[in-house]
């Protein structure tokens, strides 16, 4: 059967809803929305087969603006709702849009289980390291010492890294991008869309109102080449304005080196392998942070594993194959009865 796409090729416009976008002017969420709307028409999926599920937060207003099925759900619960949707309709392309508070504070439990289960959800976490919607309290990704309305003396909570958490929970696809680099955002979303199982993309997102410039170094033209390192499969970790800096493994720790100095060459650097069966390298990369190290951007890990919805289907089919189709009459009149004495 012809999908509607064959008749009318979809465009970005087809994914823009008629709702006024109500993020603050300059919010990083705009660029992510635009990139999502840009890549969806290229995926060859009919529009009615997309669903966007969010929790609560500024980031979670996302489904309002998408001309697709969507649900603005409960704070932190989007992965659970999306799991139910995906399992009952595996042919749908189900996306979750969440924030650092939504996914990692109140929704931490669902988040880790979505990661380990490897169910076909595309999860975009817009990490602005603050609770935006409730007007600027610190979040589980806020740095220690951060002063916010809820931490007038500075936060004493140790933050966690969404990428490290996803990897630790066994995610098969983990990537990171930054809102200001729209091409990179688009390429990470395309990679996520192509992945089988849970695909997690953290997008470093600027909240201009409550945590402006949290990623200034990564977004500023003058500094970004030194503040970030792009991960490319099979390539050494080289970065810097003059592409002369690199990351070397020194024991179990990272070491920042300059190519050409102390006889260091590209051959000494860590070579990225997103397919590595052992998660050590990906986790090692997840520990690199500004200002001591450049922030890795790109795909940390991409493994081919069976998706939960496939296994689930196979389980039901397997039962039917060995035991035959269900027969209620036979079950009711069957042999598994006992006499109550």
């Amino acid at each position, binding site marked *: 059967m012809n999908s509607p796409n064959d008749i009318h090729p979809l465009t970005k416009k087809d994914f823009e809803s008629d709702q006024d976008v109500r993020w603050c002017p300059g919010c990083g969420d705009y660029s992510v929305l635009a990139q999502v709307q840009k890549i969806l028409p290229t995926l060859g999926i009919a529009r009615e087969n997309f669903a966007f599920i969010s929790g609560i937060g500024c980031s979670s207003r996302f489904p309002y603006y998408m001309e697709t099925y969507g649900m603005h759900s*409960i704070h932190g619960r989007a992965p659970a709702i999306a799991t139910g949707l995906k399992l009952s309709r595996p042919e749908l392309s189900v996306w979750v849009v969440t924030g650092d508070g939504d996914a990692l504070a109140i929704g931490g439990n669902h988040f880790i289980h979505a990661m380990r289960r490897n169910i076909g959800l595309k999860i975009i976490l817009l990490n602005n390291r603050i609770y935006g*919607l409730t007007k600027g*309290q*610190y979040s589980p990704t806020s740095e220690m010492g951060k002063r916010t309305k*809820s931490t007038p*003396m500075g936060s004493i909570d140790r933050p966690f890294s969404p990428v490290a958490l996803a990897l630790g929970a066994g995610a098969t696809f983990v990537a990171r991008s930054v809102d200001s680099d729209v091409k990179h955002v688009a390429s990470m979303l395309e990679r996520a869309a192509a992945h089988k199982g849970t695909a997690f993309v953290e997008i470093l997102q600027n909240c201009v109102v409550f945590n402006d410039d949290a990623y200034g170094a990564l977004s500023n033209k003058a500094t970004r080449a030194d503040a970030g390192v792009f991960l490319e499969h099979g390539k050494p970790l080289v970065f810097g304005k003059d592409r002369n800096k690199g990351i070397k493994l020194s024991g179990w720790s990272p070491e920042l080196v300059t190519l050409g100095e102390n006889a260091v060459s590209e051959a000494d650097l860590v070579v990225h392998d997103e397919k590595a069966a052992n998660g050590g390298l990906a986790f090692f990369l997840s520990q690199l942070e500004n200002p001591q190290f450049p922030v890795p951007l790109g795909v940390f890990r991409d493994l081919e594993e069976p998706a939960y919805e496939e296994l689930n289907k196979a389980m039901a089919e397997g039962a039917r194959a060995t035991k035959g189709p269900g027969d209620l009459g036979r079950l009711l009149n069957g042999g598994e009865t006992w006499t109550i004495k």
Partner: protein
Amino acid sequence: MNAVLQPKPNYIVCDGNEAAAWAVSLAQVDMVAVYPITPQSSLVEYLAKFIADGRLGAEIVDVEGEHSVLSVLQGATLAGARTYTASCGPGLAFMFEPYMRTPGMRLPMVMTIVTRDTLTPQSVWGGHQDAMSVREVGWIQIYCENLQEILDTTIMAYRIAEHHDVMLPVNVCHDGNYLSFATGRVELPDAAEVAAFLGQRDVNWHVALDPDRPMAVDPLTGGAGGPGPALFVRYRKGQCQGMQNSLAVIEEVHADWARRFGRHHAPLVEAYRMDDAELALVTLGSMTGAAKDAVDEARARGQKVGLAKVKTYRPFPAKKLAEILAPVKAVAVVDRSVSFGWNCGPLYQDTLAALQASNIPAMSCIGGLAGADITITHFARVIEACAELAEKRSPVDTLWLNEHD
């Protein structure tokens, strides 16, 4: 009786959330646990600031969600700490599991509900549906009408909760938006006077951990055939008794407050212009201000209308309300929430139960949902409907306000 001490008045200008924060600070709580939610967020931000300013020497912990908030406070209260939190709407819903356990453990916590309408559709605006949805869980629930009442009641709540005849958690409810963000003048009581009012710190409540009396809290009771159900019944009965005891304690505490601070708030139900009233409105929370204005206007027109404001909602002051309403010909109850199974408001049902021995007809009015304003004009309409009910005495349908205005 005259006030024992007349402290020099110290006025501040603040909103309802700040008034609650001042009360918590004056009550010198030991531990605050929070998760932000609209319209509660600024309340706990004030507390964080008071702690940072050195005004309140409490521990504050920002946890990962409301379920943890109440769980953390259970741990702290078991250790004898005086605790506080605030939440509303979806936050209260997420808190439900530990919320349900708190009264049975007889933990004297105080928690503000900055009332908010519940989902769905999504709404961040005021309404009583959140607090009403948990009205049968065993927390004492007290509603405030104005900013001063928030401050005074929040302090009083600790004395009520910690009273040995009560030992139950207390919700002090103030309306989201209308009270949380309304600004006005509030008198701050003197800190030493508040300390004297609250009296000697006493942590010897039912399950507070005590090295001389080691125990594991909340074991599983066995089923039928063993001693389990009987134990359970005794617990339940004790809990109900504590609830009933609180009625007298709430009156006593309000009377002592009035004596010490010169401000009297009706503890259970306030009667307003009820002396020769033939019609009565029954209200809850901040709507009462507009309702009193409507009563005044109706009185000016020659209509004999009065009002009963329910302040203590759980336990329900049925006797007090029945007494106040006894002389009238008809009653109109205004709820800011609904009881789905009955197609009317919950306060209306409580009022019906209180009136069961009389043959006074009553009607249910529902307004102020999702932040809608119940204006003097709305109340005038309610008074008209009530007058009609007094005349016809036949049952009337629920009156929905704000459906088109």
